[in-house]
């Protein structure tokens, strides 16, 4: 019953320019609303306003609806074998140098630049408001007057951040290789490269979640979890824990935590969404859907994926090294 139809145009002049009818956007939005209602009620509803756990069911329902509508949406593209916008002509040469969808992706990435600029600027604003931790300055009883960055928490286990960085950089390369393979009519290679990209991306997310968990329980430092004894003159360099992180380093511990988790979390969410899109690409390439005539979608995804990678190139030094 709910299938897309091409509306026939009455005057017979141009059957190409029919308007598509699709229920997917409508259902996507309804599902999003259900998801948000579930999320808000699950975290802030109930008698005591701290969350009504029954609503997690509603949240999951909404998520499932979102996935379903996403599938319905891409169903329109599943069987396409060429660029859809070859019907859209451009009568002004200057703008004809870039395809419509690619242009759209670049503009969308512009908005994403604003997103991460905002996150980084909020971080920098707070970072600049306090001196960085140093044993030579008075940081207060709980080190609350100094900035004890996430970098300090993670320094001894930086290898994972480095692995993540390489994974992401490598995955950007594999996407480009997949695109070349498509242009060279090598569908099996396309699938292989896209799968490697997916694995690398998933590895990134898995490592990140594991890192987060370790940091949250402050497992990266001294196993005995000893706090710094200020009266005895200890400093973080002695591998003791800053007193304000005595209960772990999480986003409600301090502003260092909030900025770290929210920024890396937003980046991780973008990686996650990329992986979902990548799933579609892999499925389609698996049935040899990409070739010399039809590869633009890989290129579009590649643009997005490069951008996610670029953001990480900024996030990593700002939060892991500095």
């Amino acid at each position, binding site marked *: 019953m709910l299938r897309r139809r091409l509306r026939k145009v009455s005057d017979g002049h141009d059957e190409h320019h029919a308007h598509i*009818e699709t229920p997917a956007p409508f259902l996507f*939005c*309804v599902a999003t609303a259900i998801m948000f209602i579930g999320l*808000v009620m699950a975290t802030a509803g109930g008698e005591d306003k701290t969350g009504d756990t029954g609503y997690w069911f509603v949240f999951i329902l909404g998520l499932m609806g979102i996935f379903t509508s996403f599938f319905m*949406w891409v169903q329109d593209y599943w069987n396409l074998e060429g660029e859809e916008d070859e019907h859209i002509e451009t009568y002004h040469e200057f703008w004809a140098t870039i395809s419509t969808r690619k242009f759209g992706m670049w503009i969308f990435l512009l908005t994403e630049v*604003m997103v991460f600029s905002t996150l980084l600027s909020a971080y920098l604003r707070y970072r600049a408001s*306090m001196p960085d931790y140093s044993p030579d300055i008075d940081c207060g009883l709980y080190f609350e007057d100094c900035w004890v960055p996430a970098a300090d928490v993670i320094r001894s286990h930086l290898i994972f951040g480095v692995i993540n960085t390489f994974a992401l950089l490598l995955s950007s390369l594999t996407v480009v290789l997949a695109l070349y393979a498509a242009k060279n009519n090598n569908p099996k290679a396309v699938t292989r490269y896209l799968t490697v990209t997916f694995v690398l991306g998933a590895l990134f997310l898995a490592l990140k979640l594991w890192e987060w968990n370790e940091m949250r329980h402050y497992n990266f430092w001294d196993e005995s979890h000893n706090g710094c004894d200020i009266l005895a003159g200890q400093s973080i360099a002695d591998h003791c824990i800053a007193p304000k992180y005595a209960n772990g380093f999480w986003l*409600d511990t*301090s502003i260092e935590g*909030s900025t770290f988790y929210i920024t890396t979390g937003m980046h991780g969410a973008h990686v996650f969404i990329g992986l979902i899109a990548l799933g579609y690409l892999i499925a389609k390439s698996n049935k040899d859907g990409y070739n010399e005539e039809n590869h633009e979608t890989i290129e579009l995804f590649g643009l997005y994926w490069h951008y996610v990678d670029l953001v990480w190139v900024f996030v990593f030094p700002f939060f892991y090294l500095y």
Partner: protein
Amino acid sequence: MNRIKILGIGILLSIIFAVTAVPTGETNPGGIDPGISTLVEANGCSCHNIGDGDMNNPNSAVVLNLSMPDNFTAGETYTLTLNISGGPNDIAPMENGPNMGGFMLKVSTGTLTPIDNNVWKPEDSSYLTHTGGEEGQNGDGNNLREWSFNWTAPDSDSVVAEFMVYGNSVNGNAYEESGGMGNSGDYWNSGVFLLAGQNAQIADGSDYGELSGPKKIIYGFGIVFITLAVVVVGYRMVDQDESFEEVMKSYWRWIYPWLTTTDHKYIGTLYIVTGFAWFFIGGVLGLLIRWQLYEPRVDGDFLTYQEYNSTFTMHGTTMIFMAAMPIIFGFANYLIPLQIGARDLAFPRLNSFGYWLLPTGGIVLYMGYFTGGAGDVGWTGYAPYSSGASATRPGTDFWVAGQLMLGASSTLTAVNFLVTMLRMRAPGVSLMKMPLFSWSILVTVFLLLLSIPVFTVALILLMADRTFGSLYFSGPDSDPILWQHLFWYFGHPEVYIVILPAFGVLSEIISTFSRRPIFGYTSMVYAMATIGIISFVVYGHHMFTTGADPLFRFIVMLTTMLVAVPTGIKIFNWLATMTGGSVVLNTPMMFSLGTIITFTIGGITGIILASIPLDIAFHDTYFVVAHFHYVLIGGTMFSFIAGVYYWYPKMTGKMMNEKLGIAHFAATFITFNAAFYPMHNVGISGMPRRYATYDSSLTELNQFISIFAILFGLAQLIFVYNVFYSYRNGKEAGDNPWNGWSLEWATSSPPPENSFIEIPTLLDAEEEAKKSE
């Protein structure tokens, strides 16, 4: 004729039935004695040198614990114990007393009584504090970190008692510095503890079985709508002898195309209708505000103060995000492809997605009304009230979530329009040959792309603070002004986003009804682009009183003054267009001219507010409310109402009734100015914004405003009637009833399915002259 009479009576009866079925009830005060806010009580730590280091901020290291029974019975006396732990006293206790800890405790209802000499109650006060402080209360209270006292419950056990506690953890290390007083370097914290009576409910303060005002309205509308639907369906089943399935199927066949369309014309229509529907909902909220302000009222007289706070919050958010922007996107959706000679937008499915996020996002936004109160943080959502103590929960969370969806909608739509307008213009439509409405949308989408994501991130940070406890705005080291920077960096381009398309509409209408080209097309384009660019560097003028960097505030004053210049150019160009033309004074033209007048007034008050010394007096008073209503209603809404009158023939193929239109204009213009102009006076007299009640000396002016506001709302019914009446009975419009020049007038009314039979070519006036030779 008989059928219509029967149907009419049936509908009338069903409305009467539905209205009587709506449950009655009373609005509920918040459950907290309103007197608490005027209780003259000491700040808990006034004895410990405010302004001395950490004494400014509560510190979460200090843990307060008040042991209480589960609930109370009326009139009973209970012994409660307050315990303080954490803070420097744990690490650095006083070596040789005195002064280990201190407290101050007050309660909203009931009576407090000390039971030993560690606690005392100052004369003429109702709060308790520790002894051993000053002024000769002898006792050991200052040496303790735990105190007990008695509390006698009030006579009603269906209320909730709110205990407000301040606790101090003394820093023994500071004994020397403070000259033996031991009151420096202390950490303190405060907390609220709720104790419900046996028959009270803590959560949303409403007694079981009673509905809040907003719930009644929503349920009432629901009942009326469902009853109406039953009557219409039933009538049709009887009259046409159809089965229920057949009736449902025919309605489904009618509605399904609307749910699944990606045609810019249908989506545009959906946007416009949705936008105007929410405009009326927001208008009802506005009328609630004005009725509340009809005279000074106590809490709960008409609305509770908390309900009032939700009302003005939802009024602002609805009007900007659910009314103004959708109407703009609606006209843009419908007209841009027509004006540039394209068949549709670049990404039709994305267009549909952008639209449907709107009603669904709106529902999420309003969910607060079902859960104890809609968001009450003001449309600006200033932290830390919005990130912490906001009184409505989860209403404020729904407010945040709904706007996340609406922000996504605007961003994706902006991407769509930008690509369309740059890539899909017909032959001959170069950028400097686009109609000015198209240009206004082009500049607007740039503003959207660069500002909405910032707001979206700010909302995410706010949501993180509220839901996950992050400390962006709600911690002791957080900066509330960061929120203001993030919000207004979006917020100011936002108001230009809603006014620039209005400028575009005005340019079209004034040019068409002067029957001559717009005066100074090129300068109009450059003026809009300049306004767009400058709009990003003026946002600090909303923050003149915050104490932000003086250089920042000064620069922003300069740029704000500067942005008046391109705006003035546009106004003068419109007037010059009319000079030497042949002015037709029909409804769209009258609304446009009315807009020029009201927008000029709004612009002038904007210049007044741009000057920092004057803004210090006027900021956050009704003067600002008057200013932005003059530019938003008098600028945006009037222009788009004019746009409806102007493009209605194109969209429906029917002309609107001119007499009703003039009547609508006259009623609207007069009541609008009568309602909003006195707000300038009220503001100069000192009435602050967002006040639920006010000084009684301003009663007369406020009554005048309220009455005309209600009349202004009623005047819009003429417009609604005209829209529906003309759809059935309007004259045939023809392709170009107004003799406009842009490409939408070169296709039929309404346009065919694919908008143009053939993609047209826009000719230049010189080319056209050559052709006809």
